[in-house]
């Protein structure tokens, strides 16, 4: 499953390196702290309101379990229902194939410009870059995507790609790129500027691309959940609509939307319902695009499906609740993850899509605090998957000869041997008590040797007491 040419990971440094730079950026930390605190509070409020929230989560998990168990069947069913409704279905095994299909379809329309609804899947396959090479301009219509596109930056959040920017930074950007010198930093005015800027495009561009939040196998319906109305514009105004969807986004039945349309909005933007949801089925006579293509994308997903523990990662509905609640993400921001998928979901999804060998620092980008698992609307046990992936990283590392000289590997092995017998363990305890004395001051070690130095570089380490618990216990037994 090695994909060095993969389209997901940018040439990013290891997580801890990117994170180090990010935690030192105080403006970024302030923006992130404020934004994540706000959204956490909102989510908790609307989730507490539902008496059956836990039941909904379990239902969501069960539906997704069933999807994964019968993914082949549901995909075939979806292809049939979409085709019957006048749509066309394409299968893309990787990013390259998907980009080729989309490029070909756009070229066939003769259009050199498309409008896009925010879609992580098209970010994942880097569709915009592929289109640019083919001479096609992709215009992002989601406010945050537009901000990112105008700033020539990378997304730092799956739902709010410009979460790292505050209002005055956005204002400065719009003033410059939209030529609006008098613009204030009132969010309402900033939004109005975007409305003005994109209206012409919505009225005239003939082709749109989108992702999909859900697709219903039973009916062939595709669902896009959004806020601003740019989604409705892209799904309604053009002549041709091309939707790129990961194969895991499928839901078996129409009624399943009754579960997911409660889980998703409350988990993502912390609202009872998002402003707009569009559900369409193939093409509708005299209403909306008269040509519809659905591209079903694998791009590593079947590899994830084949991993018993990792599979649950495919349940993800990209709500971003885990990201918003993550204390690590709050400090580092999204860019440190070097992927279109940041935060806890990124830490488990990216290494699985590109292979752990190409993202071996990501499974460690977590303190395993479990906040993500608690909020995940489909109950993905993220800490469990992280630990599982760490196991893969180490197992891979241990097949390399370099591991014979790797301090961590050697240390871990030595400790495991020590712990294997009570006698060696007790010997080690006593050795530690003796060896530490040159470093101890006032009951603490402030400047430790070797690996301990990594700890004491940041904070003090308590000295090992002269008597272990077990020695005390033995003494007590003797005395009795």
């Amino acid at each position, binding site marked *: 499953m090695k994909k060095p040419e993969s389209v997901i990971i940018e040439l990013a440094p290891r997580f801890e390196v990117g994170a180090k730079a990010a935690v030192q950026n105080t403006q970024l930390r302030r923006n992130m702290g404020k*934004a994540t605190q*706000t959204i956490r509070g909102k989510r908790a409020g609307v989730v507490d309101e539902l*008496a*059956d929230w*836990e*039941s*909904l989560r379990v239902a969501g998990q069960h539906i997704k379990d069933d999807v*994964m168990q019968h*993914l*082949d069947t549901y*995909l*075939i069913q979806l292809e049939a229902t979409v085709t019957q409704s006048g749509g066309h279905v394409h*299968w893309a*095994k990787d990013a390259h194939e998907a980009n080729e299909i989309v490029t070909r379809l756009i070229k066939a329309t003769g259009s050199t410009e498309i409008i896009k609804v925010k879609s992580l899947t098209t970010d994942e396959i880097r569709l915009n870059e592929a289109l640019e090479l083919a001479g096609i301009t992709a215009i992002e219509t989601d*406010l*945050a995507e537009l901000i990112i596109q105008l700033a020539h930056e990378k997304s730092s959040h799956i739902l709010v790609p410009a979460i790292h920017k505050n*209002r005055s930074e956005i204002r400065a950007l719009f003033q410059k790129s939209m030529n609006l010198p008098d613009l204030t930093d009132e*969010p*309402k005015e900033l*939004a*109005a500027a975007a409305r003005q800027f994109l*209206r012409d495009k919505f009225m005239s561009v003939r082709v749109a691309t989108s992702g999909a939040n859900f697709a219903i196998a039973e009916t062939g*319906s595709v669902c896009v959940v959004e*806020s*601003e*109305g*740019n989604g*409705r*514009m892209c799904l*309604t*105004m053009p002549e041709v609509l091309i939707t790129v969807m990961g*194969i895991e986004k499928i839901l078996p039945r*129409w*009624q399943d939307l*009754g*579960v997911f*349309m*409660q889980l998703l909005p409350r988990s993502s933007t912390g*609202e*009872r*319902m998002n*402003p*707009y949801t*569009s*559900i*369409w*089925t*193939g093409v*509708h006579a005299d*209403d*909306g695009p008269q040509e519809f293509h659905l591209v*079903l994308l694998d791009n590593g997903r*079947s*590899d994830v*499906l084949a*991993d*018993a*523990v*990792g*599979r649950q990662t495919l349940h993800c509905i990209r709500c971003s609740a885990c990201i918003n609640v993550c204390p690590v993400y709050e400090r580092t921001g999204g860019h440190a993850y070097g992927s279109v998928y940041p935060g806890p979901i990124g830490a488990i999804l990216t290494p699985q899509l590109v292979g752990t060998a190409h993202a071996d620092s990501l499974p460690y980008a977590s303190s395993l605090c479990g906040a993500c698992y608690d909020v995940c609307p489909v109950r993905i046990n993220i800490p469990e998957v992280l630990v599982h992936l760490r196991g893969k990283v180490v197992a891979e590392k241990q097949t390399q000869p370099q591991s014979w000289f790797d301090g961590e590997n050697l240390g871990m092995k030595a400790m495991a041997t020590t712990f294997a017998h009570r006698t060696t363990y007790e010997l080690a305890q006593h050795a530690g008590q003796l060896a530490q004395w040159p470093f101890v001051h006032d009951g603490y070690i402030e400047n430790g040797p070797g690996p301990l130095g990594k700890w004491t570089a940041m904070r003090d380490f308590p000295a090992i007491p002269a008597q272990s618990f077990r020695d005390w216990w033995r003494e007590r037994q003797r005395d009795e």
Partner: protein
Amino acid sequence: MLAKIRTAINTGDRGDFHEAHTSAPYITNDDGNVAVRIELFAHRVAEYKAWVGHCTAAGIAQAVAERLVIRGKKRMVIPSDLPDSWLSPGVEYIRDSQLDRTVIAGMDGVLSGAALGIAQTGTIVLDGGRFQGRRMISLLPDYHLCIIRAQDIVGVVPEAFAQLATTMQIPMQPYTFISGPSATSDIELNRVEGVHGPRTLDVFIVE
């Protein structure tokens, strides 16, 4: 691709180790009081910063007329099947029969009916059916005045999907769920009203 998926389904099966979680079934309908449900709907829609009013079936034209005066809207696009009895004098109504998009975009607003309402979330559902018209007409104008019948308001989200399933036709209609005016949370994660969809939403509940 399918062959690979099939192999993966089998290799990745968790078998005996799969943790089975059971819990009470989620709520699929609200059997509460109708008046409470309608009150909740009105309240929840208003929380999205939409305006909500009540009127009788016979009083729709009157209510619409008053509302449009307050909003200062004079040229409204309407679905081709909207009843004449809803229309008030003093306002120019243009029926949509494949009108050009620039004409629709140039209108002051749109007046439409609705397929369903969901009380729990303050959501209006359009299905392109009775009194609703094409998706484009409720999208391009900056103002949407929506008339919903009290008996079309359901309690919870699963009820809405169950209800829509009963009215589904082949070929299927397109559905649009509207919860308040167009909004974005993209600036510092605060909801601000008004991006590409109608920036003002008024709703009448007909009892």
